[in-house]
């Protein structure tokens, strides 16, 4: 047989093989997850769940937008039973796109405060990710700090390092500001903030903390679990950097600290609805909640769970009670606002 006829034939054989090998199993006793949480930050919990219940868990990780797109385009045929994200705005977007279904569970309602779940049960928050001010201990006194809004004041000129406005964490923060202060006021604020930058935005959250520790700037905004993992790092340089900075909880008198929620919802066309709910309940259980705090330094949604030693060392704070779904709604407005303010 010649090459020209061989290649399409090969192609189709190869294709059929691939399909045969990788068709997702849909038998009972299984849950299929699309997860925007990284494998390292969820797999150990899933393994525990499988061990306890005998239910097999199949996992695909990825970026939340892409997973949502995959879920949408697969429609009723989707193999996914559960969508896990690390951002509540995306859960709200998934709900609006019609790819989630409402589930009712007393265990979930008891473990998760109403503020961190959808009223109808379309999604449930599983951990909290706070974004406070992180400052250099030797150059900034906590008394000088007060609110996010205050960071636009001229006294901070050349002292602030921030991450790019491409970061969804900054987008959510600004969306929250818009919800509280209105768009016009927030834009003035963003322009003042940009004028205070020590350098153009670049790098990740950890890089901002390191810049503060090294003296390139005096303060930054970063999610606490990054600082937490630096504190507990095996790298001596990271540990030392983390020791030079401290956490300040802003807006204590006003709106509270900006918090995002990681969570999950059962998909609209889930074939394994009951095991999926069981898994949700497991993730909200005491043991799993404690794991979030101990391993990834995130705040548990269940207020009855004591935070880890690292979390305790940063003290208590007032949480912004804004409905997290609002953050998703205002995300586009926030991005455009940051473009106008020149926040790269």
């Amino acid at each position: 047989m010649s090459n020209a006829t061989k290649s399409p034939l090969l192609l189709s054989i190869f294709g059929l093989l691939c399909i045969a090998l990788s068709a997702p199993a849909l038998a009972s006793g299984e849950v299929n997850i699309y997860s925007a949480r990284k494998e390292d930050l969820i797999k150990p919990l899933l393994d525990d769940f499988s061990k306890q219940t005998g239910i097999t868990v199949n996992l695909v990780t990825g970026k939340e937008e892409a997973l949502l797109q995959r879920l949408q385009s697969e429609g009723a045929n989707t193999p996914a039973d559960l969508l896990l994200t690390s951002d509540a705005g995306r859960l709200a977007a998934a709900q609006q796109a019609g790819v989630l279904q409402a589930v009712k569970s007393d265990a979930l309602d008891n473990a998760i405060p109403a503020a961190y779940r959808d009223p109808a049960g379309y999604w449930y928050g599983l951990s909290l990710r706070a974004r406070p001010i992180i400052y250099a201990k030797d150059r900034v006194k906590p008394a000088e700090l007060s609110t996010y809004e205050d960071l636009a004041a001229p006294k901070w000129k050349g002292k602030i390092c921030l991450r790019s406005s491409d970061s969804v964490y900054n987008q959510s923060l600004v969306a929250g500001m818009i919800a509280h202060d209105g768009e016009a006021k927030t834009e003035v604020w963003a322009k003042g903030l940009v004028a205070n930058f020590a350098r153009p935005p670049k790098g990740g959250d950890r890089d901002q903390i390191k810049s503060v520790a090294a003296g390139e700037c005096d303060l930054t905004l970063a999610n606490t679990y990054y600082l937490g993992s630096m504190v507990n790092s095996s790298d001596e340089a990271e540990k030392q950097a983390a020791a030079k900075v401290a956490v300040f909880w802003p807006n204590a008198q006003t709106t509270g600290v900006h918090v995002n929620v990681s969570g999950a919802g059962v998909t609209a066309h889930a074939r394994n609805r009951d095991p999926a709910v069981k898994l949700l309940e497991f993730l909200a259980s005491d043991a799993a909640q404690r794991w979030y705090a101990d391993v990834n330094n995130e705040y548990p949604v269940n207020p009855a769970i004591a935070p880890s030693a690292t979390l305790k060392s940063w003290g208590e704070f007032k949480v912004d009670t804004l409905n997290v779904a609002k953050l998703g709604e205002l995300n586009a407005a926030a991005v455009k606002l940051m473009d106008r303010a020149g926040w790269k």
Partner: protein
Amino acid sequence: MEVGCPSLHRRPLSQGEKGVGAWIVRIDRWTGWVLGTALLLALPVFTVFVTALQPAGEVWRHLADTVLTDYVFNSITLMLGVGAGTLLIGVPAAWLTATCEFPGRRGFEWALLLPMAIPAYIIAYTYTGLLDFAGPVQMLLRELFGWTRQDYAFPEIRSLPGAVLMLTLVLYPYVYLLARAAFLEQSAAMLEVSRSLGAGSWRRFLTVTLPLARPALIAGVSLVQMEALADYGVVQYFGVSTFTTGIFRVWFGMNDATAAAQLAALSLLFVFALLTFERLSRRQARFHHTGQRVQRPPRLALHGRWRGLATATCLIPLLFGFLIPAGQLSVWAWRTASHRVDDHFVDLAAHSLLLAGGAALLILLLALLLGYGQRLRPRSVVRLAVRGAGLGYAVPGTVIAIGVMLPFAALDRSVDHWVRAGFGMSTGLLLSGTLFALLFAYCTRFLPVALHSVEAGLGRIRPSMDDAARALGSRPRGVLWRVHVPILRGSLLTALLLVFVDVLKELPATLILRPFNFNTLAVRTYELASDERLADSATFALAIVLAGIGPVILLSRAISQARPGHDPLS
């Protein structure tokens, strides 16, 4: 070099390839195969264009008012800068290792390819770790001289020039590889003719060697520029706004898929202009050997300071493109490997190697089919279709992945619907979420890599070879299999290697399209690195590099032995 006498073009159709349809274009079997394959592969890009045709909201006015000029300026600078940088490093290194003799030449031949095994965003992370304000280099300077922040100026690595540098360091091997193959295939006879005509060595290089290698150089540079345009990891981390970051920002940040598709389409216009320029620049000339036997020119033995200079020219890119970043990765991996290498590690490596190997073979076959089909039927419609299929390389992987996902899901839905209606059962997802979809995405994205190499190789085979084989009674397939493929071994191996390493590093499409419980080395590397755990990711990044080294060495040897008209592996 002979000025083209396209004898092929006027050859009447022979038996067995008679047209089966003759409306506008005469569709014979070869044309049919090529058009069909090309159109299928162009499907994802086509999906993007169709999305782009819908009217967009007022996002465009916002972009034009604020960030669009940044996107255009930064993207163009990146393309031009990386193009110039890779030529500057790749061409001298290729010429030296191909035609001269100096200390370390044999080692450099393959070692210079090593940087291509390092994913671009990984080199960006490692250099940032080293050169950043908080990194060891600046820390050391401050400690040594007692400086503070205001006392000294240090070039900022996370900037547009920094991005150009990073991408240049990992992409120059493409230019080096193609240029070296071209230099090696040049015959001694031509150089002797020019020497006998009194040309000095510089003049020979500039007027004979370089122009003869031009198709290969242009092919290499346009690949590199397309890859630079599609890069997301480096520019995003360095805070440089380009079309790619813009596409994601508009799409996910502003939730406007249409405007994002339009941005993607706009950036494709750049690529189209680039490719058109490439075609135009070599339209006039043809580059094949006319001699009966091609002899290896004797190597030019370098002496004195030229030896040192040659060694330095090869050592510098190797040092900065591979030794330093790989060294940093090794230091990190040393510290973390013990709790990172477990049972799953073997699975990850096996998945990566199988995917990369399978995709590379598949893509090579497709490239051969399209490249040869184009040679047989050089019609504008065929050329246009092959160009269309070749655009995928410049499109960010995520966009390609979604361009694959949407039509596949639509197909699954209609099959499911049809079977339900006819037989009362559901077929569910047939293609979506399978390795087939993933391989298809790889084909779309990396076909151009193989195609460039195959086309450049075919371009150097003179058409009279085809004519002779045909006159002796061989059919087109036979000519391809028995004449071209043996001659092309070097180019084919190059294509295979490039695609293999590209797939090994590929991330965005793998991430979105892979089936359940299926991870690769690149996915693990990314998951840890994007969580800002570089040290943890180092073991997996290093494994990608190691997996790439074996084929790199093997194929580099095969290429250096390959000569037109000779079997390279014997």
